[in-house]
């Protein structure tokens, strides 16, 4: 549970920090922290608590999907934001 709560704290810190930057591109960095660090920590904490089971497979699938789709969304958003700034 400690690992999952550490992930929760990372996510909360990133969400609050995302309020500060003025430029939208700078905000995207904090979104990356959520999907690349916070989500794996939360998923890992739940997986450790459950052991080997079907629940673990489900949580692992969700975590992998979140981690895999995060950079794609960040790249798409970054390209759009750059175009909007021009």
């Amino acid at each position, binding site marked *: 549970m400690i690992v999952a709560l550490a992930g*929760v704290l990372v996510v909360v810190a990133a*969400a609050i920090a*995302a309020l500060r930057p003025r430029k939208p591109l700078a905000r995207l960095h904090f979104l990356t922290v959520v999907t690349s660090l916070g989500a794996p920590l939360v998923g890992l904490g739940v997986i450790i608590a459950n052991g080997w089971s079907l629940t673990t497979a489900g949580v692992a699938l969700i975590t992998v999907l979140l981690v895999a789709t995060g950079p794609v969304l960040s790249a798409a*958003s970054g390209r759009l934001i750059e175009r*909007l700034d021009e």
Partner: protein
Amino acid sequence: MNGWLLGVTVLLIGGLAPALWLACTGGIARRLVGLELAGAITVLAMVLVAQGFSQPVYLIVPAVLVLLSFAGTLVYTRLLGVREEEP
């Protein structure tokens, strides 16, 4: 309330609230980032809800949400880009 549900509470108050604030105020880019942030945080909160209530069946909600959030945000980036290109 167990530790998992405490994590959900912290996540919703400290994480989802700032994300919704970003998604509801400011320009297009700021709202888009807020939407993505809110989607990711909601998925994690739903995972913790399933764990907190010991109901693995609830995991279907974040599993669907992560896919819908991905597709939905890509549609937003596409449509906002098209709108920007219009004369």
